[in-house]
């Protein structure tokens, strides 16, 4: 006999924790299942350990327990690859998703962006400017089923309820001094001012201004002042890839989960590994099957089931549950190419101080604002300064190609240059393509005998052209900044997985051509919601998390409104 609750949330990261908070807060009895541990802020009080959190990625599951395979095209044999740490640094699977309470919001660098209005209409925007013929043949570019205006109220909720620091650029159509003049209208300012900026941030901003651009401090999911019981950032510099030791970072294990637990209607079951979504003969989702912390098989029933396990595991769970009638699950895999660009300044920049996100950025050539160009680049990107978060071991992974890799020259290079480096990056999105997708690996299984997820992704011509164009602009900024020496990542970088993967359970109106509707509910399986970056029909040039969170708030509202209408969902008392 299985146990029954109102709602099950699988995965307690960016979207799952928000669903848990919203549903439990409204009186539903919610159980959260996460395959990782249950973390609280206390667990990370002494997290200043590069080896543990960067090199060895302590927050991520091991490939031995959670294998995943990769190949660059379907002409190749996919293989399990180690997470890119240690001797395998900067390999194809550069940064794996985290597990445990908070999920990716524990390790994220906290660039907290809204997508631009044009990014919800990417196909239309490109076709109107460059013509339909400019769209690559294999592309599955579409417009989103919702627009910026649908999400604006939810972006606002993310910023005010989760906590985002920043400088508004456009409040209700009025441009704000010091903000991003290209920003879409927002209903109000951020709840907190921008973070104190990293040492070289102002130098970067000056260079941008001298070139006629409009830099502004990046919006950050980090408290710049004390915020709702959380401490302000103390600028330790162990931030991206690290948990926060003072709960300044907006991680859902310190935002939504404590509030969900305080409702009295929410229970967390850590180390619970969901392996199947159960359905009734009509196709409706009825619950999940999981292995508990002892490895015992359990079943749990609910009227609402939310998968918030990241684009990759969400797709895998749908596939192993046989939810893929139209063949769309796992298609349209998208990611970012970062165009890493590093140089040295004459002064000490101390790249280990403060978070990377505490830096200026410029949006002049982003997305649909991409300048006219001969290269055929259809979509731009912000140019983002990277001010902090670089500890010594990581620094050895980012050196000029001709710098010595060992010996006295290596030692001298590090001593002379590490403390003078400054980086910039961009994030040009890949276009969804019929060539790139995830499916179940035909041979590799996990320790429970379930198929591993197989990623098929390679870089294509447009990816290379887009980075080529933007690197030119970074070079002009570097020159203006007075950088002495610069070096750039390969145009086709070695990584294919960097916790920016999206698109694998596309949302759309047409049940034949998408997996979920615009509230994240599976077309084929009522009662089942698949949330996260997997919903994105196309990819913006921005970090995905704030949009993931905004979509989660919107889905929570929808579920509660539907529940209110039918009044049959809640078994627990409100309050």
């Amino acid at each position, binding site marked *: 006999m299985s146990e029954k609750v109102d709602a099950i949330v699988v995965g307690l990261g960016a979207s799952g924790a928000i669903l848990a908070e919203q549903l439990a807060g409204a009186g539903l009895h919610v159980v959260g299942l996460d395959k990782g541990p249950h973390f609280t802020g*206390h667990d990370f*009080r*002494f997290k*200043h*350990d*590069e*080896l543990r959190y960067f*090199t*060895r990625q302590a927050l991520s599951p091991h490939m031995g327990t959670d294998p995943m395979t990769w190949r660059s095209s379907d002409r190749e044999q996919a293989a399990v690859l180690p997470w890119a740490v*240690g*001797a395998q*640094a900067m390999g194809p699977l550069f940064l794996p998703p985290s597990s445990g309470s908070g999920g990716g919001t524990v390790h994220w660098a906290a660039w907290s962006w809204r997508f631009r209005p044009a990014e919800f209409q990417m196909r239309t925007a490109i076709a109107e400017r460059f013509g339909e013929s400019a769209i690559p043949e294999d592309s599955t570019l579409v417009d989103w089923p919702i627009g910026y205006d649908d999400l604006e109220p939810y972006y606002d909720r993310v910023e005010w309820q989760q906590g985002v620091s920043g400088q508004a650029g456009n409040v209700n159509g009025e441009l704000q001094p010091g903000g991003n003049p290209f920003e879409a209208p927002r209903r109000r300012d951020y709840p907190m001012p921008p973070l*104190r*900026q*990293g*040492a*070289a941030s*102002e*130098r970067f901003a000056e260079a941008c201004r001298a070139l006629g651009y409009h830099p502004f401090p990046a919006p950050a999911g980090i408290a710049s002042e004390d915020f709702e019981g959380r401490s302000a*950032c*103390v*600028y*330790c*510099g*162990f931030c991206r890839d690290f948990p926060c*030791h*003072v709960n300044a970072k907006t991680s859902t294990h310190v935002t939504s989960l404590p509030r969900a637990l305080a409702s009295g209607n929410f229970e967390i079951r850590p180390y619970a590994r969901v392996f199947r979504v159960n359905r009734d003969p009509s196709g409706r989702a009825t619950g999940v099957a999981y292995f508990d912390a002892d490895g015992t098989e359990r079943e749990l029933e609910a009227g609402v089931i939310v998968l918030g396990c990241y684009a990759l595991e969400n797709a895998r769970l749908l596939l192993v549950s046989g939810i893929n009638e139209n063949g769309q699950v796992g298609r349209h895999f998208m990611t970012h190419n970062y165009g890493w660009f590093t140089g040295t*300044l004459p*002064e*000490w*920049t*101390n790249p*280990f*101080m*403060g978070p990377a996100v505490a830096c200026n950025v410029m949006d002049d050539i982003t997305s649909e604002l991409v300048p006219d160009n001969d290269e055929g680049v259809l979509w731009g990107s912000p140019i983002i300064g990277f001010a902090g978060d670089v*500890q*010594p*071991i990581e*620094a*050895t992974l980012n050196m000029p190609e001709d710098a010595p*890799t*060992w*010996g*006295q020259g*290596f*030692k001298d290079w*590090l*001593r002379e240059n*590490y*403390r003078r480096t400054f980086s910039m990056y961009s994030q040009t999105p890949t276009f969804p393509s019929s060539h790139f997708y995830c499916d179940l690996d035909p041979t590799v299984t996990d320790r429970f005998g379930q198929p591993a997820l197989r990623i098929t992704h390679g870089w294509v011509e447009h990816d290379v052209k887009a980075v080529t164009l933007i690197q030119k602009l970074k070079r002009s900024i570097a020159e203006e900044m007075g950088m002495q020496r610069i070096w750039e990542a390969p145009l086709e970088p070695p990584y294919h997985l960097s916790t920016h993967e999206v698109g694998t359970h596309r949302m759309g109106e047409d049940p034949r051509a998408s997996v979920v509707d615009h509230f994240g509910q599976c077309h084929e399986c009522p009662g089942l919601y698949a949330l996260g970056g997997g919903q994105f029909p196309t990819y913006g040039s921005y970090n995905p998390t704030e949009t993931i969170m905004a979509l989660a708030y919107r889905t929570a509202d929808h579920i509660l409104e539907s529940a209110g209408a039918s009044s049959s969902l809640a078994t627990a008392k409100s309050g």
Partner: protein
Amino acid sequence: MISDELVFFNESEARTVDAVAARIIPGDDADPGAREAGAVVYIDRALAGAYGDFEKLYRRGLWELDHYCRTKHGGPFVELDEEHQDEVLSHIDAATESQLPTQLQIGAGERQAVDLGPGVLAEFFAAVRQHTIEGTFCDPAYGGNRDAVGWRLLGFPGAQWGYSAEQMRLGFDATTIPVSTLKELRGERRSDGDR
């Protein structure tokens, strides 16, 4: 000195790894490198624990390295002078860059072929290099970076609770900040705050 603390290597293996590490980040008492940081102690502990997967690569790589050195230079790696040690490592490193060849043609005149195994030496050197870097720049809690010499070499202040606005100014000399380790940070902060 090294042998008092070993949990994975035997003494001879430890001496070889220490000698390789000392060429990857060279140093002496006045200007410490990987040897002075105790990188080999870090590697030894890592292989007995978190990096158990590397056990075979190290055991085989160490054997291959000495076999290669004996064939080419007439003695094991630790008995070569620094110049010859660097020559050996450069040779192996070049193999890394040319995509792990299975066999290298070495030796003048007769073009004697020495089997390097299927890229084992190259893979081994890449691993020792990475682990030497870790053992030099990790927190001292892991057995390497003794007295934080690796951090001092770079001017990195280590595990700091946070930085002030003054310290975050462009051009600030971070070597003026006393270096702190995780152990020191715990000692200072354990009692305060929310505990």
